[in-house]
């Protein structure tokens, strides 16, 4: 009997407590930086596209919402000719981000993606590319990979040894 009275009193005291509800459209709130929201394509610190069009994200995607076509520029640097994510299919699982070998594809804490027309949820490369390195500042795939592209020969990458000269007899 006493416990019932105490319960009612405790619940009554909750009237003076802070509300838990966030008045969403008017009040914003901060999501953790690793929240899995809208997908973006990031760039190198020097401004080039990070994506090397390896298709690993498209393969990893469980709902097949990523479509892309690989191509190369004249210097041998691979990039996607088009890169398309259908966000009406995307389940924001983050497998594409895990699969990406170059940190190009990243999930962001933005989720305000409502559209009246379903077709508007198909994002093209222009919509996905951002002007920065995203969550990995300073990382540049082409600068540490051993692949030869324009302006960087084999052995000129960071912490990369010069290739062995097979014609030389010196050790």
């Amino acid at each position, binding site marked *: 009997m006493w416990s*019932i009275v105490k*319960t*009612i009193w*405790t*619940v*009554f005291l*909750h*009237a003076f*407590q*802070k*509300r*838990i*509800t966030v*008045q969403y459209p008017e009040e914003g709130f901060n999501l953790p930086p690793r929240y899995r929201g809208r997908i973006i394509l990031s760039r190198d610190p020097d401004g080039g596209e990070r994506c090397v069009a390896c298709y690993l994200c498209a393969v990893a995607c469980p709902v097949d919402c990523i479509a892309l076509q690989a191509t190369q520029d004249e210097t041998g640097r691979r990039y996607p000719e088009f890169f398309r994510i259908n966000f009406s299919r995307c389940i924001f699982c983050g497998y594409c981000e895990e699969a990406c070998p170059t940190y190009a594809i990243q999930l962001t804490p933005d989720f305000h993606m409502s559209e009246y027309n379903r077709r508007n949820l198909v994002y093209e490369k222009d919509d996905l590319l951002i002007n920065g390195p995203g969550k990995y500042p300073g990382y540049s795939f082409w600068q540490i990979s051993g692949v030869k592209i324009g302006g960087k020969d084999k052995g000129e990458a960071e912490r990369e040894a010069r290739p062995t000269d097979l014609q030389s007899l010196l050790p």
Partner: protein
Amino acid sequence: MSLWSIAVVLGVLFGVLTLAAALIWVERRLLALWQDRYGPNRVGPFGVLQVAADMIKIFTKQDWIPPFADKPVFVIAPAIIVVTVLLAFAVVPFAPGIVVEDLNIGILFFLGMSSLGVYSIILGGWASNNKYALLGSLRASAQMLSYEVFMGLSLMGVVVLAGSFRLSDIVEAQRGLWFAIPQLPGLILFMIAGSAESRRIPFDLPESESELVAGYHVEYSGMKFGMFFVGEYLGLILISSMITTLFLGGWLGPVLPPLAWFFIKTFALIAFFVLVRASLPRPRFDQVMSWGWKTMLPLALLNIAATGAAVLWRQGGQ
């Protein structure tokens, strides 16, 4: 019938029905208040137009009568509860002169009408031809029968003190001291019985969503379902206004006009019932029954005996 009495009838009818509709919003806001939320606050100022939105929704919903139901009874059942509760409002004195019919057996009329309300639930559950509905209405009948017994008995102390069954006389008898103080056990017993009568949450076993889906109104939809809820809210207002009249001095109070005092007290009681709903879980059915018969009924009898003895002793002393 004079113009004034017609005005009172219409005023009570519309006032009470509007209040019952507004309670949808009030209850949701109050529950939210005690659960650290805001409740409906989008439609109109503070969300008051939520009531209008709910009404539009419930009136335009498909009103489905299941083919296996007993059609005439199924249709009549939700109306019974609203009619009986509204009839019970006829004897409630809102202020001196503002009462539909000041019967000299007002309390008995109120008890009779609130007992008739149980037919609505039994018939609704029976006519639905559904085992959950039937179980719900079985529980309702058992619960309401056992709680009605001491509901009536808990009021007899007030009647003994006031010396009348007429509600306006009972209010006048509280000029010196509200009956809530000499009749505190009666007040607590009547509150418990009242919330069991109006099937509110600690005693919503006829409805119990977790075990009986929705209990007696599981087959109801649209406004027929709405009628059960209007009936429940009307019952809540009725119980609160009866407690106000019988124990809290009705319209009596300083400065403010009598009607205002009546509404303040009634609303405070409604808020208290919502608070109880927010706090307490639903007991097991056998606990409800044994609590009613083995604890509340003897307490009510003791209360009458003690009150009667006190009144007689005081008369003998003169």
